[in-house]
């Protein structure tokens, strides 16, 4: 029997290289996971002392005055994210249906591509845009402007997940419906969408999670207020802005408040992401990666 020797000094050397590279790959995995542990750990460690019932229900106090809360930011965030969801869901779901039902059309190619580009766009430029079209004409920073900016952040996420989750609805279901003489629009609304609804819900939840953490566009649109908003046309506080504003201040009690708000926000993200996991299992692992 002939034995073949490969170049590079035969199998010992090659195995050696293989081991080293495996080690480096494992090292990369460790380095990638460490920041997550540090961040979540630090937020929990610094944030827990700040959290109590009053923290959630009372308004902020001036530096040095104990007992302040972040109720203004909680209400403001909920208001703006809720309003943004109302604006973004019809547009995002509509576009997603178009992408999945008419994938070959020219509009679908162009719009779907634009959607991908928009999903990765610096959100601060969206803030400038909304400043120009809403804040400048109305002469005030407002929850309305903040919600518009957040809606632009949400649409691409909803559109993409809607498209992906409708595409995997089996063709046989669609054919069965059509064979019964049900028109296409009814098939889409009643059969395709109701089969893919877990995916739709996922997209909406993910976009809510993303919008709730957005800070940059709100700085140019909603700004901040220490009070509960009374109308949609006045400056409105939000949790991420509060974290930025209080965290960059020189006052230790404000910084503690920022950590408490950060813990609240991270907990909200974790809950939403875990419920997405439970809602859909592993089916959509690939879908999420694209966002």
């Amino acid at each position, binding site marked *: 029997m002939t034995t073949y020797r490969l170049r590079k000094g035969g199998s010992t050397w090659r195995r050696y*290289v*293989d081991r080293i*590279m495996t080690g480096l*790959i494992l090292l*990369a*995995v460790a380095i*990638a*996971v460490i*920041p*997550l542990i*540090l*961040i979540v750990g*630090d*937020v929990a460690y610094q944030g827990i002392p700040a959290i109590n019932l009053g923290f959630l229900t009372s308004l902020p106090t001036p530096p040095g005055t104990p007992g302040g809360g972040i109720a203004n930011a909680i209400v403001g965030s909920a208001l703006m994210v809720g309003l943004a969801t109302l604006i973004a869901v019809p*547009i*995002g*779901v*509509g*576009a997603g249906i*178009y992408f999945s039902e008419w994938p070959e059309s020219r*509009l679908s190619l*162009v*719009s*779907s*591509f*634009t*959607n*991908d*580009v928009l999903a*990765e766009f*610096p959100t*601060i*430029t969206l*803030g*400038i*845009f909304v400043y*120009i079209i809403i804040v400048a004409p109305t002469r005030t920073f407002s929850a309305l402007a903040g919600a518009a900016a957040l809606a632009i952040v949400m*649409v*691409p996420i909803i559109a993409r997940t809607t498209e992906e989750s409708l595409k995997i609805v089996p063709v046989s279901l669609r054919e069965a419906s059509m064979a019964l003489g049900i*028109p*296409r*629009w009814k098939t889409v609304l009643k059969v395709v969408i109701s089969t893919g609804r877990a995916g739709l819900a996922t997209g909406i939840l993910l976009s809510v999670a993303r919008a709730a*953490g957005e*800070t*940059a566009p709100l*700085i*140019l649109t909603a*700004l901040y207020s220490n009070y509960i908003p009374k109308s949609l046309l006045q400056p409105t506080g939000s949790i*991420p802005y509060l*974290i*930025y504003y209080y*965290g960059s201040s020189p006052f230790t009690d404000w910084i503690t408040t920022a950590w408490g708000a*950060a813990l609240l*926000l*991270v907990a909200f*993200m974790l809950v939403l*992401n875990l419920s997405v*996991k439970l809602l859909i299992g592993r089916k959509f692992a690939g879908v*999420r*990666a694209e966002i």
Partner: protein
Amino acid sequence: MANLSKSSRRARSRGDVVLRSLVATAAIGIVALLLVLGAELVNNSGLSLTTYGLGFLTGTVWDPVHLVFGALPFIYGTLLTSGLALLIGLPISLGVAIFLSEKARNRRGMGSLLGALVELLAAVPSVIYGLWGLFFLVPVMKNYVEPPLHSYMGFLPIFGTTPIGTDFLTAGVILAIMIIPTVTAVSRDILNAVPNSQREAMYSLGATDWEVTRKAVLPYARSGIFGATILGLGRAVGETMAVTMVIGNAPSISASLLSEGYTLTSLIVNQFNETTSSLYASAMVEIGLILFALALAINFFARVLVWRMTRGARFRI
């Protein structure tokens, strides 16, 4: 009978037309949004565009009081920190992606746990990275990482200045942490899309795991991974809050990574609401326009590369 079927067909097609035009409106809305966004930025930076022309891009002085506006320090800061982020983040992301697609392929539990952790890293909001960066990373860099770099390698211009913590290097590190999830997730999908026959052919020649990855998988996925990298670059360029909180916010074009800096995004955060004249406001919008153009070019390029790899013939350019 004929009448009946005709009318029902008409009703059917009317419903179809209504649905199609409704959802098409949404799809058109997305395209229109990007176009209007670009047009508004150009419109509102008109004053600054005509006043400064191309000098805006090359000017090194930013002095709102005397209405002297040059964007170069901010462009420099954005490109330098993003470049650093890629330099640090790309090898790590590739390692994790290779682990997920090649090593953990048959260990689904481990792979999906790690995948979930990386996804969580992507879900953490930017401002949280900023807060953590300010109170954890900045002191660590200032006290433990940067002094040795400065004292042992201070003869290199890139480590030439006294460590302060809030600088280009720290911003680059935090950006690297933030782009790892993006680059990892896209690269993993690209590697998963490499046909198994590529691997099997190489294994059948007696290759080791690494040789298969290096010679059969990575070359096949090259353009897609390049796309993932550019996508990470786009994310780094547009990243705002975390960078603003750790970079020091002082405009400078210094070769030293240990010096304070400023980026396009952090300039907008700090000064957009403070403008005192229409020329100043217009200059701020032009900063946004530069960012818009940069992000558009980067994302367009990246998407073309990634789409070609993962969606195949659907979108050929």
